[in-house]
């Protein structure tokens, strides 16, 4: 697999309309040579899981600024697992309080990015995660 073939879904679940962060990340991943499927605002977990399946992505990035991450993320993880995509690398960005990060990681989220994260770091982490998946 080369970088060209990494496919990433960038999705914004929930009801907040702030998609700047999602777009910045989508653009950075594109510039790093990845194929980014961008689905736009106000996606339900079901829509995200369905897109992840049809597009056979290696990774899913969820951007959440509404504070609803503790209900949206578990649902996405559950749906991905139910459809046989537990190997997909899920990362979360947005406004996520420090105290929630361990619980998200417990669910299988590979990384959580807050404001000020450099896009280069996201790109590096993602390449690492896709090329070296965790032992099942």
């Amino acid at each position, binding site marked *: *697999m080369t*970088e*060209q*073939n990494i*496919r990433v879904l960038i999705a914004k679940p929930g009801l907040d309309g702030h998609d700047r962060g999602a777009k910045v990340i*989508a*653009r950075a*991943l*594109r*510039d*790093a*040579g*990845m*194929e*980014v*499927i*961008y*689905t*736009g605002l106000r*996606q339900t977990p*079901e*829509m995200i899981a*369905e*897109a992840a*399946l*049809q*597009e*056979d992505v290696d990774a899913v990035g969820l951007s959440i600024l509404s504070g609803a991450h503790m209900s949206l993320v578990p649902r996405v993880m559950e749906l991905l697992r139910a*459809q*046989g*995509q537990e190997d997909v690398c899920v990362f979360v960005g947005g406004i996520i309080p420090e105290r929630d990060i361990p619980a998200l990681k417990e669910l299988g989220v590979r990384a959580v990015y807050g404001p000020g994260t450099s896009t280069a770091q996201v790109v590096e982490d993602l390449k690492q995660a896709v090329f070296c998946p965790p032992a099942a």
Partner: protein
Amino acid sequence: MGLVEQVLAGDRLALARLLTQIENDTPEGREALDRLFAFTGRAHLVGVTGSPGTGKSSLVNQLARAFRQPEDGSDPVRVAILAVDPSSPFSGGALLGDRVRMRDLSGDPDVFIRSMASRGALGGLARATAALSQALDAAGYPLILIETVGAGQSEVDIARLAHTTIVVESPGMGDDIQAIKAGILEIADILVVNKADRPGVENTERALRAMLDLGHPAAHKHGPSLGAGEAEPAAEQGWVPPVLRAVSTRGEGVAEIAAAIRRHGEYLRSSGLWQQREKLRLESELDALLRDLLARRWRAGLDEDLYRQTFDGLLQRQISPLQAAETLLRQAESETSNPTRAS
């Protein structure tokens, strides 16, 4: 159970994974295609092309809905969508955003949407689009909508792949000279003037109709003793592309486009053109494959030193590109005719 069997049994994750294998041209993907080919040839491939921003994705979204919930009481059809967006010429990456306009379709298990990056191909499709459409065909989608890269004037590969090609225009995109230029408008089986709620729609429509009149003078609506109406061209005069208005964000005019797609499918089948197009398509696919395989095989057997030497000559402008190609070809030919000489 292998991937192919799972796909034939209707497993959507297996289908998605197989599409990836085919797109990446892996040995598994190639083998699966070989086995699936016997199950292809059933789907109606409909291409949707046009300039960037004319509303192709929104139209595809609405068309898929129209075929899933037909207003005329016909049976709903399973729909697959292949949406191609350009790859960056610099990074090779891509931002595939066609799904943004297709959110209405989510939750319907009988719609399968797949985004594709063009990966450097220039004709408006990706190199693997034909192969992916074959896999979707074998997976039992009788209607496959293929949305091209936003196309300008000469990205016409879609006409070779699709049975029915829809060219989407919108008001304010140029005068009637644009409309009689060769290229994209020539390939249209159905012309759609989208965003028809915008000013200038009459001008666009008139330019397109005038262009059609130049090409199909017999179909002129004022002509005497035309047996059939404009919308139902008589078989002997061929198919005259209808010009249809739409406002795809609101779904207006979409039922008429869906009906035109059905009509065009029937026309192709009853006139024998379906088989003819199929034949041309497979022929050009075989030719392209032969060229590709021959070039690759020949290149693999070429003496690297000779290649570099010849290329240096070219770089220093001692020989022209054509001379360089001929030198290398000559060398390879003499080696194949005297295989013992090299040893």
